[in-house]
Protein backbone atom coordinates (compact mmCIF):
# COMPACT_ATOMS: atom_id res chain seq x y z
CA UNK A 1 0.00 0.00 0.00
CA UNK A 2 2.70 2.48 0.96
CA UNK A 3 4.59 1.45 -2.17
CA UNK A 4 1.56 2.30 -4.32
CA UNK A 5 1.17 5.60 -2.48
CA UNK A 6 4.78 6.52 -3.14
CA UNK A 7 4.66 5.56 -6.83
CA UNK A 8 1.13 6.63 -7.71
CA UNK A 9 2.37 9.85 -9.34
CA UNK A 10 4.77 8.03 -11.63
CA UNK A 11 2.17 5.50 -12.76
CA UNK A 12 -0.40 8.18 -13.55
CA UNK A 13 2.19 10.30 -15.32
CA UNK A 14 3.15 7.30 -17.47
CA UNK A 15 -0.55 6.89 -18.29
CA UNK A 16 -0.87 10.59 -19.23
CA UNK A 17 2.29 10.44 -21.34
CA UNK A 18 1.08 7.36 -23.16
CA UNK A 19 -2.32 8.98 -23.69
CA UNK A 20 -0.62 11.92 -25.42
CA UNK A 21 1.57 9.57 -27.43
CA UNK A 22 -1.45 7.49 -28.49
CA UNK A 23 -3.27 10.61 -29.70
CA UNK A 24 -0.18 11.58 -31.69
CA UNK A 25 0.26 8.13 -33.25
CA UNK A 26 -3.33 7.21 -33.98
CA UNK A 27 -4.70 10.53 -35.28
CA UNK A 28 -4.65 11.33 -38.96
CA UNK A 29 -5.35 15.00 -38.28
CA UNK A 30 -2.28 17.24 -37.87
CA UNK A 31 -3.93 19.59 -35.37
CA UNK A 32 -5.02 16.65 -33.20
CA UNK A 33 -1.47 15.34 -33.36
CA UNK A 34 -0.11 18.65 -32.13
CA UNK A 35 -2.62 18.55 -29.25
CA UNK A 36 -1.38 15.06 -28.40
CA UNK A 37 2.21 16.26 -28.40
CA UNK A 38 1.29 19.19 -26.14
CA UNK A 39 -0.34 16.79 -23.66
CA UNK A 40 2.71 14.52 -23.82
CA UNK A 41 5.00 17.43 -23.12
CA UNK A 42 2.97 18.73 -20.17
CA UNK A 43 2.97 15.22 -18.70
CA UNK A 44 6.77 14.99 -18.91
CA UNK A 45 6.81 18.26 -16.96
CA UNK A 46 4.58 16.71 -14.31
CA UNK A 47 7.07 13.83 -13.99
CA UNK A 48 9.99 16.19 -13.37
CA UNK A 49 8.06 18.14 -10.77
CA UNK A 50 7.05 14.90 -9.02
CA UNK A 51 10.71 13.99 -8.66
CA UNK A 52 11.53 17.31 -6.99
CA UNK A 53 8.83 17.16 -4.31
CA UNK A 54 10.02 16.86 -0.72
CA UNK A 55 7.39 15.73 1.79
CA UNK A 56 6.30 18.52 4.14
CA UNK A 57 8.26 21.02 2.09
CA UNK A 58 7.35 24.45 0.82
CA UNK A 59 8.04 26.43 -2.36
CA UNK A 60 11.71 27.33 -2.81
CA UNK A 61 11.41 30.92 -1.61
CA UNK A 62 13.66 31.62 1.36
CA UNK A 63 11.62 31.62 4.57
CA UNK A 64 12.65 32.59 8.08
CA UNK A 65 11.98 29.64 10.40
CA UNK A 66 11.09 32.01 13.24
CA UNK A 67 8.43 33.82 11.18
CA UNK A 68 4.74 33.00 11.51
CA UNK A 69 4.65 31.05 8.25
CA UNK A 70 7.85 29.19 9.08
CA UNK A 71 6.53 28.13 12.48
CA UNK A 72 3.21 27.03 10.96
CA UNK A 73 5.13 24.91 8.46
CA UNK A 74 7.36 23.27 11.04
CA UNK A 75 4.50 22.62 13.48
CA UNK A 76 3.55 19.39 11.65
CA UNK A 77 7.09 18.06 11.18
CA UNK A 78 9.39 16.31 13.59
CA UNK A 79 12.51 18.38 14.45
CA UNK A 80 14.62 15.38 13.47
CA UNK A 81 13.12 15.34 9.96
CA UNK A 82 13.53 19.11 9.58
CA UNK A 83 17.17 18.87 10.60
CA UNK A 84 17.78 16.08 8.07
CA UNK A 85 15.81 17.38 5.08
CA UNK A 86 15.76 21.12 5.65
CA UNK A 87 18.08 24.03 4.95
CA UNK A 88 18.43 26.48 7.85
CA UNK A 89 15.49 24.90 9.65
CA UNK A 90 12.96 25.00 6.79
CA UNK A 91 12.16 22.12 4.39
CA UNK A 92 12.02 23.23 0.74
CA UNK A 93 11.16 21.29 -2.38
CA UNK A 94 13.91 20.94 -4.95
CA UNK A 95 13.96 24.10 -7.14
CA UNK A 96 15.97 22.64 -10.01
CA UNK A 97 13.12 20.74 -11.78
CA UNK A 98 10.97 23.86 -11.40
CA UNK A 99 13.51 25.92 -13.35
CA UNK A 100 13.80 23.33 -16.11
CA UNK A 101 10.04 22.93 -16.56
CA UNK A 102 9.23 26.64 -16.28
CA UNK A 103 11.30 27.45 -19.35
CA UNK A 104 10.21 24.24 -21.10
CA UNK A 105 6.54 25.28 -20.87
CA UNK A 106 7.12 28.63 -22.56
CA UNK A 107 9.40 27.06 -25.19
CA UNK A 108 6.70 24.41 -25.64
CA UNK A 109 4.01 26.93 -26.57
CA UNK A 110 6.35 28.62 -29.04
CA UNK A 111 7.19 25.33 -30.77
CA UNK A 112 3.50 24.31 -30.69
CA UNK A 113 2.78 27.53 -32.59
CA UNK A 114 5.36 26.56 -35.22
CA UNK A 115 3.72 23.15 -35.65
CA UNK A 116 0.28 24.70 -35.96
CA UNK A 117 1.58 27.26 -38.44
CA UNK A 118 2.90 24.42 -40.60
CA UNK A 119 -0.53 22.76 -40.38
CA UNK A 120 -2.15 26.00 -41.53
CA UNK A 121 0.19 26.16 -44.53
CA UNK A 122 -0.50 22.51 -45.33
CA UNK A 123 -4.20 23.29 -45.32
CA UNK A 124 -3.66 26.24 -47.65
CA UNK A 125 -1.64 24.07 -50.04
CA UNK A 126 -3.76 20.90 -49.98
CA UNK A 127 -7.14 22.03 -48.66
CA UNK A 128 -7.00 19.48 -45.84
CA UNK A 129 -4.98 18.60 -42.74
CA UNK A 130 -5.75 14.86 -42.80
CA UNK A 131 -2.62 12.79 -43.45
CA UNK A 132 -4.52 10.16 -45.48
CA UNK A 133 -6.14 12.69 -47.81
CA UNK A 134 -2.81 14.45 -48.34
CA UNK A 135 -1.12 11.16 -49.27
CA UNK A 136 -3.99 10.49 -51.68
CA UNK A 137 -3.58 13.93 -53.30
CA UNK A 138 0.16 13.36 -53.68
CA UNK A 139 -0.42 9.97 -55.28
CA UNK A 140 -2.86 11.33 -57.87
CA UNK A 141 -1.97 14.15 -60.22
CA UNK A 142 -3.53 16.84 -58.05
CA UNK A 143 -0.54 17.59 -55.79
CA UNK A 144 -0.21 20.71 -53.68
CA UNK A 145 -1.76 23.89 -54.93
CA UNK A 146 0.95 26.28 -53.78
CA UNK B 1 -11.91 33.94 19.63
CA UNK B 2 -9.55 33.17 16.76
CA UNK B 3 -10.65 29.52 17.00
CA UNK B 4 -14.26 30.56 16.38
CA UNK B 5 -13.29 32.80 13.45
CA UNK B 6 -11.28 29.95 11.90
CA UNK B 7 -14.27 27.63 12.25
CA UNK B 8 -16.59 30.16 10.61
CA UNK B 9 -14.08 30.69 7.82
CA UNK B 10 -13.69 26.96 7.25
CA UNK B 11 -17.44 26.40 7.12
CA UNK B 12 -17.81 29.26 4.62
CA UNK B 13 -15.13 27.68 2.44
CA UNK B 14 -16.89 24.31 2.61
CA UNK B 15 -20.19 26.02 1.75
CA UNK B 16 -18.47 27.53 -1.27
CA UNK B 17 -17.26 24.10 -2.33
CA UNK B 18 -20.81 22.74 -2.01
CA UNK B 19 -22.13 25.62 -4.12
CA UNK B 20 -19.56 24.76 -6.78
CA UNK B 21 -20.69 21.12 -6.76
CA UNK B 22 -24.34 22.20 -7.12
CA UNK B 23 -23.31 24.44 -10.02
CA UNK B 24 -21.54 21.56 -11.78
CA UNK B 25 -24.64 19.42 -11.27
CA UNK B 26 -26.68 22.18 -12.92
CA UNK B 27 -24.32 22.28 -15.89
CA UNK B 28 -24.87 18.57 -16.42
CA UNK B 29 -28.63 18.45 -15.75
CA UNK B 30 -30.08 21.64 -17.22
CA UNK B 31 -31.81 21.32 -20.60
CA UNK B 32 -30.35 24.03 -22.85
CA UNK B 33 -27.26 26.15 -23.33
CA UNK B 34 -28.51 29.29 -21.54
CA UNK B 35 -29.67 27.60 -18.35
CA UNK B 36 -26.39 25.72 -18.21
CA UNK B 37 -24.31 28.87 -18.59
CA UNK B 38 -26.50 30.50 -15.96
CA UNK B 39 -25.87 27.64 -13.54
CA UNK B 40 -22.13 27.76 -14.20
CA UNK B 41 -21.67 31.52 -13.92
CA UNK B 42 -23.89 32.23 -10.91
CA UNK B 43 -22.48 29.45 -8.78
CA UNK B 44 -19.02 30.32 -10.02
CA UNK B 45 -19.11 33.84 -8.60
CA UNK B 46 -21.14 32.77 -5.56
CA UNK B 47 -18.86 29.88 -4.67
CA UNK B 48 -15.76 31.99 -5.19
CA UNK B 49 -17.19 34.72 -2.95
CA UNK B 50 -17.94 32.25 -0.16
CA UNK B 51 -14.53 30.60 -0.42
CA UNK B 52 -12.59 33.84 -0.51
CA UNK B 53 -14.59 35.24 2.40
CA UNK B 54 -13.78 32.09 4.34
CA UNK B 55 -10.09 32.32 3.47
CA UNK B 56 -10.00 35.99 4.49
CA UNK B 57 -11.43 35.04 7.89
CA UNK B 58 -8.87 32.25 8.28
CA UNK B 59 -5.90 34.38 7.22
CA UNK B 60 -6.80 37.20 9.61
CA UNK B 61 -5.94 40.87 9.27
CA UNK B 62 -2.93 40.82 6.93
CA UNK B 63 -1.66 41.58 3.43
CA UNK B 64 -2.90 38.15 2.43
CA UNK B 65 -6.48 39.23 3.18
CA UNK B 66 -6.03 42.30 0.97
CA UNK B 67 -4.69 40.14 -1.87
CA UNK B 68 -7.67 37.79 -1.52
CA UNK B 69 -10.02 40.76 -1.65
CA UNK B 70 -8.36 41.94 -4.88
CA UNK B 71 -8.73 38.45 -6.35
CA UNK B 72 -12.42 38.57 -5.40
CA UNK B 73 -12.87 41.92 -7.16
CA UNK B 74 -11.15 40.48 -10.22
CA UNK B 75 -13.42 37.43 -10.29
CA UNK B 76 -16.46 39.67 -9.92
CA UNK B 77 -15.28 41.61 -12.96
CA UNK B 78 -14.23 38.75 -15.23
CA UNK B 79 -16.66 35.93 -14.54
CA UNK B 80 -19.92 37.78 -15.40
CA UNK B 81 -18.23 39.33 -18.44
CA UNK B 82 -17.14 35.91 -19.65
CA UNK B 83 -20.65 34.53 -19.17
CA UNK B 84 -22.09 37.51 -21.03
CA UNK B 85 -19.65 37.10 -23.92
CA UNK B 86 -20.41 33.40 -24.12
CA UNK B 87 -24.19 33.78 -24.22
CA UNK B 88 -23.98 36.79 -26.53
CA UNK B 89 -21.85 34.84 -28.99
CA UNK B 90 -24.21 31.86 -28.78
CA UNK B 91 -27.23 34.08 -29.45
CA UNK B 92 -25.42 35.72 -32.35
CA UNK B 93 -24.61 32.31 -33.78
CA UNK B 94 -28.29 31.39 -33.81
CA UNK B 95 -28.69 29.34 -30.63
CA UNK B 96 -32.15 30.08 -29.19
CA UNK B 97 -33.26 29.41 -25.62
CA UNK B 98 -35.93 26.76 -25.05
CA UNK B 99 -39.06 28.56 -23.93
CA UNK B 100 -42.24 27.20 -22.43
CA UNK B 101 -42.99 24.99 -19.45
CA UNK B 102 -40.14 23.28 -17.67
CA UNK B 103 -39.58 19.75 -18.93
CA UNK B 104 -36.31 18.29 -17.98
CA UNK B 105 -36.16 15.77 -20.79
CA UNK B 106 -37.38 18.12 -23.49
CA UNK B 107 -34.05 18.08 -25.25
CA UNK B 108 -33.74 14.31 -25.15
CA UNK B 109 -37.25 13.85 -26.52
CA UNK B 110 -36.53 16.21 -29.39
CA UNK B 111 -33.41 14.28 -30.19
CA UNK B 112 -35.38 11.04 -30.16
CA UNK B 113 -37.93 12.49 -32.58
CA UNK B 114 -35.26 13.54 -35.05
Amino acid at each position, binding site marked *: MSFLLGHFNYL*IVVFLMMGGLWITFSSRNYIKRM*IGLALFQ*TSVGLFYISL*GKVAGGTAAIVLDKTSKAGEALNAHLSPDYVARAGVDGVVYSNP*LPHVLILTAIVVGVATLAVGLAIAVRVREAYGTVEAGEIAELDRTEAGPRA | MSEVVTWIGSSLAVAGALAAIIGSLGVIRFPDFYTRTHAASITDTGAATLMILGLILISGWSVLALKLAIIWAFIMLTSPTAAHALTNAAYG*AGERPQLGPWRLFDRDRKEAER
Partner: protein
Amino acid sequence: MPSFATPLDANTIVDIALLAMLAVIVVAVARTRSLLTAIILTSVYSFISAVWLVVMDAADVSFTEAVVGAGVSTIIALGAILLTRSECSRIPWRETLLPLLLVTVTGGLLVYAALDLPSLGDPSAPANIYVGRLYLQHAEHDIGTPNIVTAVLSSYRGFDTLGETTVIFAAGLGVALLLGFGERALQDTPRPSMAKMAESGQHVVLRVSAKMLIPMISIYAFYVQFHGDLGPGGGFQAGVIMAVAIILHALVFGLQETMESIPPQLARGLSAFGVLLYAGVGVVNLTNGGNFLDYDHLFPRIFEEGLPDSHLVGGHHIWGQHFGILAIELGVFLTVASTMVTIFYAFAGRAPDLSPHGEG
Protein backbone atom coordinates in the same frame (compact mmCIF):
# COMPACT_ATOMS: atom_id res chain seq x y z
CA MET C 1 19.99 6.26 5.19
CA PRO C 2 16.56 5.83 6.80
CA SER C 3 13.85 4.48 4.54
CA PHE C 4 11.05 6.83 3.58
CA ALA C 5 7.32 6.20 3.12
CA THR C 6 5.08 8.80 1.52
CA PRO C 7 2.70 10.06 4.22
CA LEU C 8 -1.05 9.89 3.52
CA ASP C 9 -1.72 13.53 4.40
CA ALA C 10 -4.00 16.16 2.86
CA ASN C 11 -1.31 17.00 0.32
CA THR C 12 -1.16 13.45 -0.99
CA ILE C 13 -4.95 13.10 -1.16
CA VAL C 14 -5.32 16.31 -3.21
CA ASP C 15 -2.44 15.13 -5.38
CA ILE C 16 -4.16 11.83 -6.13
CA ALA C 17 -7.52 13.49 -6.83
CA LEU C 18 -6.06 16.02 -9.26
CA LEU C 19 -4.00 13.43 -11.12
CA ALA C 20 -7.10 11.26 -11.50
CA MET C 21 -8.90 14.25 -13.07
CA LEU C 22 -6.00 14.70 -15.49
CA ALA C 23 -6.24 11.02 -16.49
CA VAL C 24 -9.97 11.42 -17.19
CA ILE C 25 -9.31 14.49 -19.35
CA VAL C 26 -6.66 12.71 -21.41
CA VAL C 27 -9.11 9.88 -22.12
CA ALA C 28 -11.77 12.43 -23.13
CA VAL C 29 -9.35 14.23 -25.47
CA ALA C 30 -8.38 10.92 -27.07
CA ARG C 31 -12.03 9.98 -27.64
CA THR C 32 -13.45 13.23 -29.00
CA ARG C 33 -13.50 13.94 -32.72
CA SER C 34 -14.28 17.62 -32.36
CA LEU C 35 -11.02 19.58 -32.27
CA LEU C 36 -12.74 22.48 -30.51
CA THR C 37 -13.66 20.18 -27.63
CA ALA C 38 -10.13 18.77 -27.59
CA ILE C 39 -8.60 22.23 -27.32
CA ILE C 40 -10.94 23.36 -24.55
CA LEU C 41 -10.24 20.12 -22.66
CA THR C 42 -6.50 20.70 -23.08
CA SER C 43 -7.03 24.13 -21.57
CA VAL C 44 -8.82 22.53 -18.62
CA TYR C 45 -5.95 20.05 -18.38
CA SER C 46 -3.53 22.97 -18.07
CA PHE C 47 -5.59 24.64 -15.34
CA ILE C 48 -5.84 21.45 -13.30
CA SER C 49 -2.15 20.76 -13.68
CA ALA C 50 -1.50 24.36 -12.54
CA VAL C 51 -3.41 23.61 -9.33
CA TRP C 52 -1.51 20.33 -8.98
CA LEU C 53 1.79 22.19 -9.38
CA VAL C 54 0.91 24.38 -6.38
CA VAL C 55 0.38 21.19 -4.36
CA MET C 56 3.85 20.09 -5.52
CA ASP C 57 5.32 23.44 -4.27
CA ALA C 58 6.15 24.58 -7.80
CA ALA C 59 4.58 28.03 -7.53
CA ASP C 60 6.55 29.55 -10.42
CA VAL C 61 5.77 26.67 -12.76
CA SER C 62 2.10 26.72 -11.81
CA PHE C 63 1.96 30.38 -12.66
CA THR C 64 3.52 29.75 -16.07
CA GLU C 65 1.30 26.78 -16.82
CA ALA C 66 -1.86 28.73 -15.98
CA VAL C 67 -0.95 31.65 -18.24
CA VAL C 68 0.70 29.74 -21.07
CA GLY C 69 -1.15 26.43 -21.18
CA ALA C 70 -4.61 27.75 -20.49
CA GLY C 71 -4.23 31.19 -22.03
CA VAL C 72 -1.92 31.65 -24.96
CA SER C 73 -1.71 28.11 -26.32
CA THR C 74 -5.52 27.81 -26.31
CA ILE C 75 -5.85 31.02 -28.32
CA ILE C 76 -3.18 29.93 -30.82
CA ALA C 77 -4.75 26.48 -31.21
CA LEU C 78 -8.21 28.06 -31.70
CA GLY C 79 -6.71 30.33 -34.35
CA ALA C 80 -5.23 27.27 -36.06
CA ILE C 81 -8.54 25.38 -36.22
CA LEU C 82 -10.24 28.54 -37.46
CA LEU C 83 -7.79 28.47 -40.37
CA THR C 84 -8.05 24.72 -40.98
CA ARG C 85 -11.00 22.66 -39.80
CA SER C 86 -12.60 21.84 -36.49
CA GLU C 87 -13.42 18.18 -36.98
CA CYS C 88 -11.09 15.25 -37.49
CA SER C 89 -11.91 12.16 -39.48
CA ARG C 90 -12.98 8.89 -37.90
CA ILE C 91 -10.14 6.43 -37.48
CA PRO C 92 -10.93 2.81 -38.42
CA TRP C 93 -10.37 0.62 -35.34
CA ARG C 94 -7.97 -1.56 -37.32
CA GLU C 95 -5.59 1.38 -37.67
CA THR C 96 -5.53 2.04 -33.93
CA LEU C 97 -4.16 -1.40 -33.12
CA LEU C 98 -0.52 -0.75 -34.00
CA PRO C 99 -0.34 2.56 -32.08
CA LEU C 100 -2.07 0.85 -29.15
CA LEU C 101 0.50 -1.96 -29.16
CA LEU C 102 3.36 0.51 -29.40
CA VAL C 103 2.00 2.68 -26.60
CA THR C 104 1.30 -0.32 -24.37
CA VAL C 105 4.83 -1.67 -24.79
CA THR C 106 6.42 1.74 -24.17
CA GLY C 107 4.15 2.37 -21.19
CA GLY C 108 4.95 -1.06 -19.78
CA LEU C 109 8.68 -0.38 -20.02
CA LEU C 110 8.27 3.02 -18.37
CA VAL C 111 6.20 1.53 -15.54
CA TYR C 112 8.89 -1.14 -15.07
CA ALA C 113 11.47 1.64 -14.81
CA ALA C 114 9.25 3.76 -12.53
CA LEU C 115 9.05 0.97 -9.96
CA ASP C 116 12.71 1.58 -9.11
CA LEU C 117 12.22 5.30 -8.53
CA PRO C 118 12.33 6.67 -4.97
CA SER C 119 8.98 7.28 -3.26
CA LEU C 120 7.24 10.59 -3.84
CA GLY C 121 8.57 13.25 -1.47
CA ASP C 122 11.65 11.35 -0.32
CA PRO C 123 14.08 14.04 0.91
CA SER C 124 17.07 11.72 0.39
CA ALA C 125 16.20 10.85 -3.22
CA PRO C 126 19.21 11.32 -5.52
CA ALA C 127 17.42 14.14 -7.36
CA ASN C 128 17.05 16.12 -4.15
CA ILE C 129 20.41 15.81 -2.40
CA TYR C 130 23.06 17.02 -4.82
CA VAL C 131 22.87 20.18 -6.84
CA GLY C 132 19.31 21.10 -5.87
CA ARG C 133 20.29 21.17 -2.22
CA LEU C 134 23.44 23.15 -2.96
CA TYR C 135 21.33 25.81 -4.68
CA LEU C 136 19.05 25.99 -1.64
CA GLN C 137 22.02 26.35 0.70
CA HIS C 138 23.99 28.91 -1.25
CA ALA C 139 21.56 30.93 -3.38
CA GLU C 140 20.77 33.61 -0.85
CA HIS C 141 24.44 34.13 -0.07
CA ASP C 142 25.67 34.00 -3.68
CA ILE C 143 22.88 35.81 -5.50
CA GLY C 144 20.93 37.61 -2.79
CA THR C 145 17.42 36.85 -4.08
CA PRO C 146 14.93 35.09 -1.79
CA ASN C 147 13.24 33.29 -4.71
CA ILE C 148 15.68 30.48 -5.44
CA VAL C 149 13.94 29.54 -8.68
CA THR C 150 14.72 33.01 -10.05
CA ALA C 151 18.30 32.78 -8.76
CA VAL C 152 18.88 29.43 -10.49
CA LEU C 153 17.03 30.47 -13.65
CA SER C 154 18.77 33.73 -14.28
CA SER C 155 22.13 33.47 -12.56
CA TYR C 156 23.36 29.91 -11.94
CA ARG C 157 21.85 28.63 -15.17
CA GLY C 158 21.74 31.92 -17.06
CA PHE C 159 23.39 30.36 -20.10
CA ASP C 160 20.64 27.76 -20.31
CA THR C 161 17.97 30.45 -20.11
CA LEU C 162 19.71 32.44 -22.85
CA GLY C 163 19.41 29.37 -25.06
CA GLU C 164 15.73 29.00 -24.26
CA THR C 165 15.02 32.67 -24.93
CA THR C 166 16.73 32.26 -28.29
CA VAL C 167 14.58 29.21 -29.04
CA ILE C 168 11.44 31.26 -28.34
CA PHE C 169 12.72 34.01 -30.61
CA ALA C 170 13.54 31.49 -33.33
CA ALA C 171 10.10 29.88 -33.00
CA GLY C 172 8.45 33.29 -33.37
CA LEU C 173 10.59 33.87 -36.43
CA GLY C 174 9.55 30.49 -37.83
CA VAL C 175 5.85 31.25 -37.40
CA ALA C 176 6.32 34.66 -39.01
CA LEU C 177 8.13 33.10 -41.97
CA LEU C 178 5.36 30.54 -42.40
CA LEU C 179 2.34 32.78 -41.91
CA GLY C 180 3.60 36.33 -42.35
CA PHE C 181 3.47 39.19 -39.87
CA GLY C 182 -0.27 39.69 -40.16
CA GLU C 183 -0.04 42.43 -42.80
CA ARG C 184 -3.16 41.08 -44.48
CA ALA C 185 -5.26 42.50 -41.69
CA LEU C 186 -3.84 45.96 -42.34
CA GLN C 187 -4.37 45.73 -46.10
CA ASP C 188 -8.09 44.99 -45.76
CA THR C 189 -10.71 47.61 -46.19
CA PRO C 190 -10.89 49.61 -42.97
CA ARG C 191 -13.13 48.23 -40.25
CA PRO C 192 -15.52 50.37 -38.22
CA SER C 193 -13.43 52.41 -35.81
CA MET C 194 -13.83 52.36 -32.06
CA ALA C 195 -15.97 55.48 -32.15
CA LYS C 196 -18.36 53.84 -34.60
CA MET C 197 -18.52 50.71 -32.48
CA ALA C 198 -19.42 52.87 -29.50
CA GLU C 199 -22.17 54.61 -31.45
CA SER C 200 -23.78 51.42 -32.61
CA GLY C 201 -23.62 50.04 -29.07
CA GLN C 202 -22.00 46.75 -30.03
CA HIS C 203 -20.51 44.67 -27.23
CA VAL C 204 -20.82 47.42 -24.64
CA VAL C 205 -20.26 45.08 -21.71
CA LEU C 206 -17.20 43.53 -23.28
CA ARG C 207 -15.64 46.82 -24.27
CA VAL C 208 -16.21 48.46 -20.89
CA SER C 209 -14.84 45.57 -18.87
CA ALA C 210 -11.93 45.11 -21.29
CA LYS C 211 -11.06 48.75 -20.80
CA MET C 212 -10.97 48.14 -17.07
CA LEU C 213 -9.12 44.84 -17.33
CA ILE C 214 -6.36 45.63 -19.81
CA PRO C 215 -4.59 48.26 -17.65
CA MET C 216 -4.95 46.00 -14.60
CA ILE C 217 -3.43 43.04 -16.44
CA SER C 218 -0.58 45.20 -17.73
CA ILE C 219 0.23 46.53 -14.26
CA TYR C 220 0.06 43.01 -12.92
CA ALA C 221 2.55 41.93 -15.61
CA PHE C 222 5.03 44.53 -14.39
CA TYR C 223 4.43 43.52 -10.78
CA VAL C 224 5.20 39.91 -11.69
CA GLN C 225 8.25 41.08 -13.61
CA PHE C 226 9.85 43.16 -10.88
CA HIS C 227 8.64 41.08 -7.92
CA GLY C 228 10.16 37.95 -9.45
CA ASP C 229 13.21 38.16 -7.16
CA LEU C 230 11.08 38.05 -4.03
CA GLY C 231 8.13 35.85 -4.91
CA PRO C 232 6.87 33.64 -7.72
CA GLY C 233 7.28 35.37 -11.05
CA GLY C 234 9.86 36.58 -13.52
CA GLY C 235 10.34 37.48 -17.14
CA PHE C 236 8.69 34.42 -18.66
CA GLN C 237 5.42 34.74 -16.75
CA ALA C 238 5.31 38.53 -17.01
CA GLY C 239 5.96 38.41 -20.74
CA VAL C 240 3.10 36.03 -21.34
CA ILE C 241 0.74 38.06 -19.11
CA MET C 242 1.60 41.21 -21.07
CA ALA C 243 0.97 39.34 -24.32
CA VAL C 244 -2.40 38.20 -22.96
CA ALA C 245 -3.37 41.83 -22.28
CA ILE C 246 -2.52 42.75 -25.88
CA ILE C 247 -4.34 39.71 -27.28
CA LEU C 248 -7.42 40.60 -25.20
CA HIS C 249 -7.34 44.07 -26.73
CA ALA C 250 -7.22 42.53 -30.21
CA LEU C 251 -10.07 40.14 -29.47
CA VAL C 252 -12.39 42.87 -28.19
CA PHE C 253 -11.47 45.91 -30.29
CA GLY C 254 -10.30 44.19 -33.45
CA LEU C 255 -6.87 43.33 -34.83
CA GLN C 256 -6.44 46.60 -36.71
CA GLU C 257 -6.92 48.74 -33.61
CA THR C 258 -4.28 46.72 -31.79
CA MET C 259 -1.89 46.86 -34.74
CA GLU C 260 -2.16 50.64 -34.71
CA SER C 261 -1.11 50.80 -31.04
CA ILE C 262 1.49 48.03 -31.25
CA PRO C 263 2.65 47.73 -34.85
CA PRO C 264 3.92 44.32 -35.97
CA GLN C 265 7.27 45.96 -36.75
CA LEU C 266 7.62 47.06 -33.12
CA ALA C 267 6.73 43.58 -31.87
CA ARG C 268 9.27 41.81 -34.05
CA GLY C 269 11.92 44.45 -33.30
CA LEU C 270 11.48 44.09 -29.53
CA SER C 271 11.54 40.32 -29.90
CA ALA C 272 15.05 40.53 -31.32
CA PHE C 273 16.08 43.31 -28.95
CA GLY C 274 15.27 41.15 -25.91
CA VAL C 275 17.72 38.44 -26.96
CA LEU C 276 20.27 41.12 -27.78
CA LEU C 277 19.87 42.68 -24.32
CA TYR C 278 20.33 39.28 -22.68
CA ALA C 279 23.45 38.43 -24.66
CA GLY C 280 24.68 42.01 -24.28
CA VAL C 281 24.72 41.67 -20.48
CA GLY C 282 26.94 38.63 -20.96
CA VAL C 283 29.31 40.57 -23.20
CA VAL C 284 29.52 43.43 -20.68
CA ASN C 285 30.66 40.89 -18.09
CA LEU C 286 33.31 39.67 -20.51
CA THR C 287 34.68 43.16 -21.07
CA ASN C 288 34.91 43.71 -17.31
CA GLY C 289 37.10 40.67 -16.88
CA GLY C 290 34.51 38.06 -15.85
CA ASN C 291 33.00 35.07 -17.57
CA PHE C 292 30.04 35.25 -19.95
CA LEU C 293 26.88 35.98 -17.89
CA ASP C 294 28.86 36.10 -14.62
CA TYR C 295 27.08 39.10 -13.12
CA ASP C 296 29.71 39.51 -10.40
CA HIS C 297 31.60 41.47 -13.04
CA LEU C 298 28.66 43.46 -14.38
CA PHE C 299 30.02 46.75 -13.06
CA PRO C 300 33.67 47.85 -13.24
CA ARG C 301 35.31 47.48 -9.83
CA ILE C 302 35.90 51.23 -9.43
CA PHE C 303 32.24 52.03 -10.02
CA GLU C 304 31.07 49.31 -7.69
CA GLU C 305 33.16 50.59 -4.78
CA GLY C 306 31.27 53.88 -4.99
CA LEU C 307 27.88 52.21 -4.46
CA PRO C 308 26.25 52.29 -1.01
CA ASP C 309 26.65 49.35 1.36
CA SER C 310 27.03 45.64 0.66
CA HIS C 311 28.86 45.94 -2.63
CA LEU C 312 30.88 42.91 -1.66
CA VAL C 313 29.02 40.48 0.58
CA GLY C 314 31.31 37.58 1.40
CA GLY C 315 33.22 37.99 -1.84
CA HIS C 316 30.03 38.26 -3.92
CA HIS C 317 28.83 41.27 -5.80
CA ILE C 318 25.22 41.71 -4.73
CA TRP C 319 24.76 44.86 -6.80
CA GLY C 320 26.09 43.20 -9.92
CA GLN C 321 23.91 40.12 -9.36
CA HIS C 322 20.85 42.27 -8.67
CA PHE C 323 21.14 44.46 -11.74
CA GLY C 324 22.31 41.60 -13.93
CA ILE C 325 19.18 39.59 -13.09
CA LEU C 326 17.03 42.69 -13.59
CA ALA C 327 18.51 43.29 -17.05
CA ILE C 328 18.28 39.73 -18.33
CA GLU C 329 14.75 39.31 -16.94
CA LEU C 330 13.84 42.44 -18.91
CA GLY C 331 15.33 40.83 -22.01
CA VAL C 332 13.32 37.66 -21.40
CA PHE C 333 10.18 39.75 -20.82
CA LEU C 334 10.58 41.67 -24.09
CA THR C 335 11.33 38.57 -26.14
CA VAL C 336 8.52 36.44 -24.69
CA ALA C 337 5.87 39.18 -24.82
CA SER C 338 6.64 40.34 -28.34
CA THR C 339 7.15 36.82 -29.70
CA MET C 340 3.73 35.79 -28.38
CA VAL C 341 2.20 38.92 -29.92
CA THR C 342 3.99 38.24 -33.23
CA ILE C 343 2.67 34.68 -33.24
CA PHE C 344 -0.85 35.92 -32.49
CA TYR C 345 -0.63 38.54 -35.24
CA ALA C 346 0.57 35.86 -37.66
CA PHE C 347 -2.40 33.58 -36.98
CA ALA C 348 -5.02 36.30 -36.63
CA GLY C 349 -3.75 38.21 -39.67
CA ARG C 350 -4.25 35.09 -41.80
CA ALA C 351 -7.97 35.14 -41.11
CA PRO C 352 -9.36 38.37 -42.57
CA ASP C 353 -12.83 37.19 -41.64
CA LEU C 354 -11.93 36.96 -37.96
CA SER C 355 -14.07 39.95 -37.12
CA PRO C 356 -14.49 41.12 -33.54
CA HIS C 357 -18.14 41.96 -34.13
CA GLY C 358 -19.19 39.44 -36.74
CA GLU C 359 -21.86 36.80 -36.34
CA GLY C 360 -20.04 33.78 -34.98
